[in-house]
């Protein structure tokens, strides 16, 4: 399989602080890849290493086949987490400037910028100064600047933050269009709904390490299928009857993993208790559930390691 990004054991320290301990990343060419993690998990640092903004202290990286990201910079589009454009530039020139930095001749970059602005409903703002645009519009302009040179690899750091729901939906559409054009898209987020609806594959990082790599389904499969039960009356000693259960909002709603021997024996036991079954259904874990569980797991491991080290 051809990988647009292939990074192994990336590490980066800032002074005494470890920002990235060991991150592995394999992004197949032509896919949409999610890069998930909590705030401070090391996502932005990893992306900066991949782009060559930072040099890693350890590990290897191959971006579009090259170990030196800047040598393939013309084939990469990047939207940083901290958005920024020159306030005194107009929208068309701001996009064209980034295009020119990525190797497009200025005239062509301007033509493409104009076309992109028209296509995305900002044609009338083409000559407006960035400082006169709304925050959302300015963000859209920067997004368009990321695509103007039709890159093979697009790296977006928290692209959905600050966008209203309509624009978030439009961004999802743009990302899919870019993938359909043949580009590889890697985006970081901590909003699971976008990852769930967009990603072919994803990586979850926590505490500076890769904790999961695979498809959305595979991530969801890391947690057992859950059963949600609603009863008329509280069950006496629910932990014994329903292993791994936890009560939801009151003493009559329970959630527990689907028993390995199926539902029938469980149903029989429940009927015996006389609790009165009002509702019972099976729920597949969401990506959100999987993410929370993976991150919680990583945090627990890390704190255990710290305790062990201290001991």
């Amino acid at each position, binding site marked *: 399989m051809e990988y647009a990004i292939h990074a192994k054991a990336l590490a980066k320290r800032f002074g005494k602080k470890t920002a990235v301990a060991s991150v592995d990343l394999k992004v197949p060419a032509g896919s949409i890849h999610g890069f998930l993690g909590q705030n401070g998990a090391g996502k932005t640092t990893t992306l*900066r290493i991949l782009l060559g*903004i*930072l040099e890693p202290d*350890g*590990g290897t990286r191959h971006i579009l086949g090259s170990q030196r990201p800047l040598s393939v910079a013309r084939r990469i589009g990047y939207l940083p987490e*901290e*958005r*920024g454009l020159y306030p*005194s530039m107009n929208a068309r020139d701001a996009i064209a400037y980034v295009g020119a930095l990525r190797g497009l001749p200025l005239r062509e970059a301007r033509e493409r910028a104009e076309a992109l602005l028209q296509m995305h409903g900002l044609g009338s703002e083409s000559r407006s100064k960035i400082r006169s645009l709304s925050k959302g519009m300015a963000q859209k302009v920067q997004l368009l600047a990321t695509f103007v040179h039709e890159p093979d690899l697009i790296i977006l750091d928290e692209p959905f933050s600050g966008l209203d729901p309509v624009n978030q939906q439009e961004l999802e559409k743009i990302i899919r269009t870019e993938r359909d054009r043949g580009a590889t898209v890697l985006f970081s987020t901590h909003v699971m709904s976008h990852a769930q609806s967009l990603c072919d594959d994803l990586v979850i990082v926590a505490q500076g390490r890769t904790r999961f790599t695979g498809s959305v389904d595979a991530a969801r499969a890391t947690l057992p299928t859950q059963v949600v039960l609603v009863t008329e009356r509280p069950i006496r000693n629910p932990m014994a009857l329903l292993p791994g259960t936890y009560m939801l909002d009151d003493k009559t709603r329970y959630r527990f993993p689907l028993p390995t021997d199926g539902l029938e024996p469980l149903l029989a036991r429940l009927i015996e208790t006389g609790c009165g079954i009002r509702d019972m259904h099976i729920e597949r874990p969401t990506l959100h559930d999987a993410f929370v569980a993976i991150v919680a797991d990583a945090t627990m491991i890390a704190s255990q390691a710290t305790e062990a080290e201290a001991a």
Partner: protein
Amino acid sequence: MMRAVLTIARRDITATIFSKGFVIWLAMPIIALVFGVLASLATERSSPSATALAVIDTKGDFVPWLQKVADRERAQDGYDRLRRRWQATRQNEPLPPDLTRSGDMLTGNDLDRLAVPGALDTIRERVNLGSAQLDKALHKAARTSAFVTVSPEAAPEAQAARLLTARDGKPGRFGAVLIIDDNDFTVLRQRKDANIDHITQMANTAWTLRALHLAGLVGRIDEIRSEQPTIAVKNIALSSAHNESGKQRGAAFATGAAMILFALISLLAGALLSNMVEEKANKIIEVLVASVPVPAIFAGKLVAMLTVSLIGVAVWGVMIGGAAAFVIAQLPVGLISTPERGWTELAVLGLAYFVCAYLIYGALYLGIGSLCSSIREVQTLSMPVTVLQMAILIVTLGALDSPENTWGQAVSWFPLSAPYMMAGRAALGTDLAVHAAAILWQLSFAALVILGSARLFRYGVLRSGPPPSFNQMFGLGKPARPATTER
């Protein structure tokens, strides 16, 4: 890389030259000039004019003598002025026949001839002592009467009091009134401190002149005075090496060149720092760093500011040069001396040292700017460099007195002072080969500073990672940590 440099430079140049700040920056000399002219006009208007004099001559026979004295005074003043100008500009040339005698040796007849309108202009043109514009004040004085004659009334003192006081009790248009009644002379003045020395002196001289005339002695005195020999002054020509005035002129050029360079660099360094901080504040820096190599960003910014500064210098050069050319055209030949190596060569060398100084200090400031995230931080961090620059300028100006001794040589080749010192030495007429070597050395040092500052810039722009060591900054050693290592 070059394309990236040009792309960044083009944007920065466009952004700068189309900004209001740049227009103000360009117009600064004009604004300063306009303010200067306005201030001088205001000062001229507000300064009290020489005590205006009214003369009441009860008999009416003394005023013509007073007028003659005033005319002669003015003629002598103009004559002395021309003489002084000749001596200032043609130090080694003997005075021409028109100006041989000193003003106080001129006879009454001589002064009467010179008092005729246009007589002094004719001499000035004949001996090539500049344009008539130079003697504007003299011409103005010629058109203004030294005093105003007022027809006498029955009570001259009461009349004088009225002339000195306006209706509302404030000072009138005259500062003093001279009442002449036969041999009685009285001066009435507004204030005790009003200077009436000139008035009394004029009256006394006029009285003497009239008395001599009445005694028939004027012709004889003129005759005697015209026979008075002039004292010949001969100049001994000195070799140029010992020509003190030449040395003084050279030193003035040198100081001027070093100061101009310092002012320009200080001005531009500030602009460069602000530009860098703005870049970081706009957060655009991350897109730049991800798109092109950091040295390209660094070089692009340096090239942009250098271009902007050269545009500024060119515009100022045309403006100031034009104004200077206009002024020089009015001045007598020789008043503005030409530097030893000529203006063109000096300008080219000055430009070369400007570029060297700009690259050295610009790179330093840009490196500092990359470490700052606010103007306050910029001010704090750039202060030591500014102080260093000031100290270097002071040392340079001191060393310009003796550029050839050991200290002068050390300042000439110490990289931070070299551009200023060598710009100064260019005005003193140092050998071109020395300048070629100096420029080469300074450019090499500038390259080293750019290299080091670019590393610092890389560390500074994203504020990540440990600061580079000295060896890393100048690429002398291996990086502290390998960029990419297999685990």
